[in-house]
């Protein structure tokens, strides 16, 4: 059995129910199990309902849309979280949903050939830069207009332009933002992420978007990785795949953005001595902030690419077809735990009690970002069929 000293403090890194709040007690390996079991039960209940409805409606010749397990798992989670609540014993394990998300993304690499990543990742990166420049500028202007503090404005701008909660947590240390500002920014991002789960698929269907175009849109416009993955998967399995790819491109920028802000705050004399010391070694800072799961994703993609080679010697180095299927199913199980966690983590009362102004700034900003990225995607789709 693994010793507890070898394991990460998942709760400290990914605070679950009260965004930004530091957990009161430390986790143990044993302490994680009840929550992980709850994730599995809620997620599997979603899968069971999807299967049951499909079988029942087919047997009785009833026309009924296929509602994926993703939506059921999220809804069941939200229902539990906002009615009976999640008892303390489950919270540490429920917080591991981000861990399962990253594990799922890495294994999802098996469904990408490196050529596709370069091609689509290239388009995504160009769109990411345009959307990033727009959202950062717009959110900063909006924060100033609504008289939010500079730290809260920065956290909201970075959270909405790069990668949601992870970016806010990374930025918090770099600009010495206080706990309350981080908590507010995270709450705003999560509340809007929860709304996007229900609005994005509706808009995508109304506009008859292709899986690829919709997936890129979800990956570019939805801030938090878990919600972006879920918003994509709610549309279709393929859309979920492209949402992950676009979101991964955004995530890869996190180190550079946090470093740029940290340097700017230091130059202005706003950063503390500790924050200034942290950016002395820029390479170490970048490596520290870089999302390592992106490397795992690329490595698995490399093995999938080798396996698809027509040269038998090269193909033998990679995964064969049945191995790719097994890896694809593994990522589905990991996402099943993730989506249950997204629902269980969403406490509507907590999300909306953070005050109206940051939420309004976030909402106005997010709507503008969603609209601009949608126009970008539709524009690109016009010249280059996505």
């Amino acid at each position, binding site marked *: 059995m693994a010793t507890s000293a070898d394991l990460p403090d998942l709760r400290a890194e990914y605070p679950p129910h009260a965004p930004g709040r530091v957990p009161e007690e*430390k986790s143990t390996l044993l302490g994680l199990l009840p929550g992980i079991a709850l994730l599995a039960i809620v997620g599997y209940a979603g899968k069971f309902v999807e299967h049951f409805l499909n079988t029942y409606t087919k047997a009785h010749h009833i026309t009924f849309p296929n509602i994926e397990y993703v939506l059921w798992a999220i809804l069941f989670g939200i229902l539990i979280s906002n009615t009976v609540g999640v008892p303390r014993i489950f919270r540490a394990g429920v917080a591991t949903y981000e*861990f399962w998300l990253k594990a799922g993304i*890495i294994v999802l690499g098996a469904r990408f050939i490196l050529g596709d990543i370069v091609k689509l990742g290239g388009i995504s990166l160009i769109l990411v830069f345009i959307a990033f420049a727009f959202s950062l500028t717009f959110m900063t202007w909006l924060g100033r207009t609504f008289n939010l503090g500079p730290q809260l404005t920065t956290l909201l701008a970075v959270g909405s332009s790069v990668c949601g909660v992870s970016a806010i947590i990374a930025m918090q240390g770099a600009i010495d933002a206080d706990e309350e500002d981080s908590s507010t920014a995270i709450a705003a991002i999560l509340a809007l992420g929860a709304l996007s789960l229900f609005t994005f698929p509706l808009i995508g269907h109304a506009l008859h978007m292709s899986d690829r175009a919709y997936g890129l849109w979800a990956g570019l416009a939805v801030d938090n990785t878990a919600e972006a993955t879920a918003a994509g998967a709610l549309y279709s399995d393929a859309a979920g795949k492209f949402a992950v790819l676009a979101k991964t491109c955004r995530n890869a920028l996190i180190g550079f953005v946090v470093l740029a802000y940290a340097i700017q705050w230091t130059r202005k004399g706003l950063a503390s001595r500790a924050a200034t010391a942290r950016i002395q070694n820029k390479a170490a800072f970048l490596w520290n902030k870089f999302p*390592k799961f992106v490397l795992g994703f690329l490595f698995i993609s490399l093995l999938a690419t080798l396996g698809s080679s027509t040269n038998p010697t090269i193909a033998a180095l990679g*995964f064969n077809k*049945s191995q790719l299927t097994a890896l694809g199913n593994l990522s589905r199980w990991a996402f099943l735990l993730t989506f249950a966690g997204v629902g269980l983590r969403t406490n509507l009362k907590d999300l909306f009690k953070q005050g109206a102004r940051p939420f309004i700034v976030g909402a106005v900003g997010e709507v503008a970002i969603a609209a601009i990225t949608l126009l970008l995607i539709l524009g690109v789709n016009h010249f280059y069929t996505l």
Partner: protein
Amino acid sequence: MPSPTKSPSTPIQSRLSTDTWAVILSLSLALLIRLGLLKSVPW
């Protein structure tokens, strides 16, 4: 002086980030599949 013993309820602490743990777990499972030790994963 005797070294302190770790109880099962020792808080979870690590130098490795959650990202790194996710990479380790995923690559280990991928290796098991690649070596044929984990032949199929049902869905």
